[in-house]
């Protein structure tokens, strides 16, 4: 028993060392490419591009399920993007609330009988397509409930343009976001199959007419933690992964795809969460198996603002869903592709990394904790060793956090106030005391849900952007 624990201890130290070094390594790639990205964006003429006839047209797909509170503002904001030619397709996924009616009322939409829906992908029954010539680039699809993936597939069936952008109905795009992503696409239109955008937390920001008019960090505890978490994941992680073409996920909240390849891989997989990771895995698989040159890119300056859950309950359900989706994807695709040279970087680096350090992470953490109890009971350790081990862990994590903040400050500077930087630093440390651990537990619970065959989407409550604003107002008043 003692021997076993000893071996496990050595393994655990290596595990922690390797995972953190890998994180740092990936982050180095982020640093390496950030300067290029920065120069690219400084020397690009986005204003001229946003009216240019050479920019490829895009179909924006907005799946909406029970979004009556925010949908109008979001569609309004989507209709005034800086982009030459695009259409917005809202897909009402059999909402139980007034989502369909508020849209029809607001935009005076009418049932259109000759909308050309091509059945390239199978979906739930489409009840109707609504349209108003006064808003020539807005379509509304009403269909039976079938989940987010199903809605996206229905949107693809109606879409008229070669690129599709998937956007969550609770998110707001910056006016330039689409044109920035399109520029990345235009660098290499032949090979680019998917591009992800940067997701940021909108809680605390001032939002007017569907536009983020004043950028602020969230006032509340949980959104603030998530804000840092997203910064780390997107700036520290995804820029680096994109640099070695090993990106495994393009966030479902905002991503742009080549429609032809999405159709070739069979569209989005319905019936289970994690469809955003799934489509990227399928794209990698298809392109590599057919030996086609390709890239999955990430565009950190195309920003999409999203509402973060601000209660433990809803956050927990979101994280369990992510855990579930991740496990499903790994079982369905990951285990057949992992460590096979045929799948190059994706099979040799991304997938092993993802399986070891993301999917199996909770088990290492939990057994680690058990082992720790064992060490203490068997008197194999002392406070000194534990402290060093803990400090090493936190130091690494802090380094990664600082790295992400540094990337943010070098390249984007969305939060220019000094107090914001101090606040972000503080939360970077705070994350290690409780939040991380709870995240691990959620992921584990997600796996249990998977085994029990629970594949619901879980609850996600929305607050209206206006209510959010009012809330922030009142909290400001309280502080003042």
């Amino acid at each position, binding site marked *: 028993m003692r021997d076993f624990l000893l071996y496990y201890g050595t393994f655990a130290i290596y595990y922690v060392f390797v995972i953190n070094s890998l994180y740092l390594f990936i982050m180095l790639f982020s640093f390496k490419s950030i300067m290029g990205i920065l120069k690219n964006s400084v020397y690009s003429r986005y204003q*001229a591009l*946003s*009216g240019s*006839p050479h920019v490829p047209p895009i179909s924006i797909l907005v799946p909406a399920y029970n979004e009556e509170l925010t949908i109008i503002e979001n569609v*309004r904001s989507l209709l005034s993007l*800086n982009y*030459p*030619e695009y259409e917005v397709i809202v897909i009402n996924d059999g909402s139980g609330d007034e989502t369909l009616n508020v849209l029809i009322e607001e935009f005076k939409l009418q049932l259109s009988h000759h909308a050309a829906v091509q059945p390239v992908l199978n979906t739930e029954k489409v009840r109707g397509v609504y349209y108003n010539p*006064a808003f020539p680039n807005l379509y509304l699809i009403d269909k039976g409930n079938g989940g987010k993936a199903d809605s996206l597939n229905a949107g693809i069936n109606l879409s008229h343009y070669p690129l599709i952008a998937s956007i969550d109905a609770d998110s707001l795009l910056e006016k330039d976001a689409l044109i920035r992503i399109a520029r990345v696409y235009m660098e290499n239109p032949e090979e680019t199959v998917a591009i992800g955008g940067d997701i940021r937390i909108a809680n605390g920001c001032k939002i007017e007419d569907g*536009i983020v008019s004043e950028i602020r960090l969230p006032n509340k505890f949980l959104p603030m933690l998530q804000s840092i978490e997203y910064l780390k994941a997107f700036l520290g992680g995804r820029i680096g992964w994109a640099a070695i073409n090993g990106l495994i996920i393009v966030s479902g909240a905002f991503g742009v795809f080549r429609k032809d390849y999405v159709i070739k891989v069979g569209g989005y997989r319905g019936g289970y969460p994690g469809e955003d990771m799934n489509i990227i895995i399928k794209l990698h698989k298809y392109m590599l198996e057919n030996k086609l040159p390709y890239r999955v890119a990430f565009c950190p300056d195309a920003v999409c603002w999203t509402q973060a859950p601000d209660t433990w309950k809803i956050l927990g359900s979101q994280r369990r869903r992510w855990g579930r989706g991740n496990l499903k994807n790994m079982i369905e695709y990951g285990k057949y592709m992992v460590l096979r040279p045929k799948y190059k970087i994706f099979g040799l680096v991304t997938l092993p990394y993802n399986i070891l350090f993301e999917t199996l992470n909770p088990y290492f953490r939990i057994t680690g904790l058990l082992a720790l109890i064992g060490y203490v009971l068997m008197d194999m350790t002392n406070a000194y060793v534990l402290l060093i081990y803990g400090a090493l862990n936190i130091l690494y994590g802090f380094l990664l956090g600082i790295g992400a903040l540094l990337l943010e400050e070098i390249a984007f500077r969305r939060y220019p106030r000094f107090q914001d930087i101090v606040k972000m630093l503080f939360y970077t440390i705070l994350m290690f005391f409780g939040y991380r651990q709870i995240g691990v537990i959620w992921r584990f619970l997600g796996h249990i849900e998977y085994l029990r065959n629970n594949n619901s989407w879980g609850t996600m409550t929305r607050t209206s952007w206006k209510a959010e604003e009012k809330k922030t107002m009142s909290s400001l008043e309280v502080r003042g």
Partner: protein
Amino acid sequence: MNSLVTAFHQFLQVSKSGNNSCGIILANCKQLGPKSLSGIQEALEQKSMGLQVNLAYDRNSRVLAAFLEKQNRSETHFTALQVKDVLQERGLLAGSLLIASFSESNQATGYTLQRMIQEVMEMAGFGEIKLFYHHLDGREDTAGSILLVNHDETVNEFLQIFLQQKGYQVTIAQDGMDGVQKYQELIPDLVITDLNLPIMNGYQLMERIRQQQEGPASKIVVLTDKKLEEDVKKSFALGASDYITKPFSPVELAARVKRLIS
């Protein structure tokens, strides 16, 4: 924009039913509170035996405005004497008065009122009453009025200064909704609009302007990023007189504007 213009616009909407004349009295005052405003109102109504007087006061310019229903110029002049008396009794008068009546000719627009406000603030003397003849002289001092609807603040500020130097009256609206509102209040000679606007886009704005127009039409110039032929075609179909794409030359824009309104 001056708060009096908004008040005037409201007054016009209320009084529009059936009357064809209205009088305006502007007076330079000292700082007024809401209490003294209602005091003046009462005193005026007593003096003039039941005359309907609508008072409005703008804090920034310290101008008191009285809007009168169904009053021709001489009646307005008479009421102005009473206003002057009331103000003098209370020691609130700070300068001269300017009156106008829209009975005889001109369409009353926000621009005329803005010009009047400017004139009354520049007037010397104390307690003098002057008639505002501007609408009879035609438009000598300004080359025309322009409403600029655009979301880019930098461009707005620059164009406003640039066009003002050329002698135009320029008003700015930040989005489509604001644009429609200001259009209804001011009825400018020319509208310069972007296509890509929040809340209500340029096409809807043009549509609304087209529906609203009675009498001489406001010209529309589209100033936008969009270079697609679809957009050009559609803009002209909706009544645009010109289509300019960004990046644009301000000199060229001014030349095109001049061709349209002069």
